[in-house]
């Protein structure tokens, strides 16, 4: 039996952060992970993250993954891969399956950072090849460079369903429809809007009746459901698809904690069976800590902070630091974590219906029911202003913890203020220089640069365009509205892809001036 000061189970964002903090404070630390590579799910996340600078906002997930691995290396963290922890016993002893052998270790402290597993739903045909988890789609396309399918139906409108739908389109798949049994979109409105404007239809209050096919998926039938989740006859719709992607939530992988005798609770707001723990991840068993999704489903940004907290708390538990230092360090981490837990999508608001923003503005119901904001609704939000010359139009209408746009503008045109969830506003008297940094920095792709009247009957709209092929200058096509319908003729007049945009190319399209506030996407003819 080998012994370590600290054993961490899981080398995802929380486990690695915990290991880095512990190793920096002198703890002899080891991390076991069942996978071939460390980083958990971070390397499958190719979108820019939300939050503020301290949460590594506007950095793409896989880049954060690389940064964490570098930090772990520098801190001297030992990560053992292909090592499945199969038991956690009394006195913090664990057994690990490595290759064909079983090894036995003891830690003076243990951090469980095992993350979560995808949920699934059943329907006739759900076991057919071609019905896959959303995580499987991400694994295939973003890690292995293989298309998950050609025509995909996505079930689930939470952030995973929305983000993965966008990623499927980025790698060249067609997303035929986005379906959710809930009456309203579950994830961020900005994620929904960037899919809807490409023309993907949203079917809320719908779910899958059956998958079709003998050997693999060849089609799917969905139908509308009533408030008791019963199918409404006559509402069936058929789609020819080869893939059905399930994004119906995550459940904490807390089995090891239950096995060890931790006090557990069933908490739907945290995603299911979770350990009872305090804000620093201390469970009912002294010296056993938790961090990340295993203690409640959130996201990678919060998992990283929880990991740091647990790593520092473990250092204090083992006497490597004093209680004073623990308290001092945890204050700033608590602030960072609380920052992420604000706004409409805060854990405490799960399941609640929110009708107005913090600013007292009625939310866009159409965004929630169909994935896009109507022309009537958009004008009431503070990011929408009209003036002569180029100016930012920020279609950010929900209070989410995110503020990179205000730091991105070198001219100080955009303000969110001290409260990270506030809607962005255009600063009075500020002068936009058309640099595009706000457009590229918006993780929700909700900022556009608009010149409403060029003087010759046309207007210019600059939009983010993370797709291939990238249209060239002069390409003619259609301007699409927020709902993805073609609204006007459009021509690309500029394509910018600066290093500073971090792979978010900006297209500027010329449209008739009446469409300056209507055209939000471009489709080449």
């Amino acid at each position, binding site marked *: 039996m080998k012994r370590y000061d600290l054993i961490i189970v899981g080398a995802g964002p929380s486990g690695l952060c915990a290991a880095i903090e512990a190793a920096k404070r002198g703890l002899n630390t080891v991390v076991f992970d069942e*996978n*071939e590579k460390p980083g958990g799910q971070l390397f499958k996340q190719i979108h820019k993250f939300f939050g503020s600078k301290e949460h590594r906002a506007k950095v793409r997930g896989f880049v954060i993954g690389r940064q964490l691995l570098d930090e772990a290396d520098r801190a001297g963290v030992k990560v053992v891969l292909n090592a499945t922890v199969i038991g956690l016993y009394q006195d913090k002893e664990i057994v690990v399956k490595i290759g064909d052998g079983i090894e036995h270790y003891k830690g003076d402290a243990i951090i469980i950072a095992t993350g979560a597993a995808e949920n699934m739903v059943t329907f006739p045909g759900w*076991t057919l*090849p071609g019905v*896959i988890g959303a995580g499987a789609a991400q694994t*295939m396309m973003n890690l292995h460079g*293989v298309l998950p399918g050609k025509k995909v139906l996505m079930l689930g409108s939470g952030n995973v369903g929305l983000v993965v739908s966008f990623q499927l389109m980025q790698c060249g798949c067609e997303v035929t429809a986005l379906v959710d049994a809930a009456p309203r979109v579950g994830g961020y409105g900005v994620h929904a809007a960037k899919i809807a404007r490409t023309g993907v239809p949203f079917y809320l209050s719908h779910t899958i009746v059956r998958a079709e096919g003998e050997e693999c998926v060849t089609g799917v039938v969905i139908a509308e459901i009533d408030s008791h989740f019963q199918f409404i006859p006559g509402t069936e719709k058929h789609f020819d698809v080869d893939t059905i992607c399930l994004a119906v939530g995550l459940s904490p992988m807390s089995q090891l904690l239950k096995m060890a005798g931790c006090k557990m609770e069933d908490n739907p707001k945290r995603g299911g069976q979770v350990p009872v723990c305090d804000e620093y991840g201390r469970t009912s068993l002294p010296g056993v800590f938790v961090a990340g999704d295993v203690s409640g489903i959130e996201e990678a940004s919060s998992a990283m902070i929880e990991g740091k907290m647990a790593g520092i708390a473990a250092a204090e538990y083992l006497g490597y630091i004093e209680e004073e230092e623990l308290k001092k360090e945890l204050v700033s981490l608590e602030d960072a974590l609380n920052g992420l837990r604000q706004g409409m999508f805060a854990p405490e608001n799960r399941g609640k219906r929110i009708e107005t923003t913090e600013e007292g503005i009625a939310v866009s119901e159409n965004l929630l029911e169909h994935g896009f904001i109507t022309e009537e609704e958009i004008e009431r939000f503070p990011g929408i202003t009209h003036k002569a010359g180029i100016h930012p139009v920020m279609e950010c209408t929900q209070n989410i913890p995110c503020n990179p746009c205000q730091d991105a503008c070198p001219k100080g045109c955009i303000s969110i203020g001290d409260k990270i969830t506030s809607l962005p506003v255009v600063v009075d008297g500020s002068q936009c220089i058309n640099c595009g940094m706000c457009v590229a920095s918006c993780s929700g792709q909700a900022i556009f640069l608009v010149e409403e009247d060029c003087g010759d009957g046309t207007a210019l709209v600059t939009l983010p365009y993370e797709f291939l092929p990238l249209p060239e200058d002069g390409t003619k096509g259609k301007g699409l509205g927020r709902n993805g319908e073609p609204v006007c003729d459009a021509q690309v007049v500029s394509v910018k892809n600066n290093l500073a945009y971090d792979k978010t190319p900006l297209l500027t399209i010329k449209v008739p001036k009446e469409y300056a506030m209507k055209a939000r996407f471009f489709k080449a003819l």
Partner: protein
Amino acid sequence: MAERIKEHPILGIPEKGTLVKFTFDGKEMEGFEGEPIAAALKAAGVMVHRYTKKEHKPRGIFCAIGRCTDCVMIVNGVPNVRTCITPLKEGIVVQTQYGVSAEPFKQ
């Protein structure tokens, strides 16, 4: 290999390494060394990895991270190998799994 991503707007051109040969149900196929066997099969358009023992229903990739065991196949004669997390090597023999056997059901 029509199902591979040639160029990705964020990730660029995938770096896949060495092309190797293997067999699937006796047919020679190609894939990249070290990628999951399931990825190579998917890229070649193979959807069915096995048929269930009792009801003879087809199964393929579901979770792609080694949890669900839907994608198990017979690899080099060993049944129940999770192809989504088992790296592809030159010359391996991959077979569709019927129940826990490589023998198709008799009926």
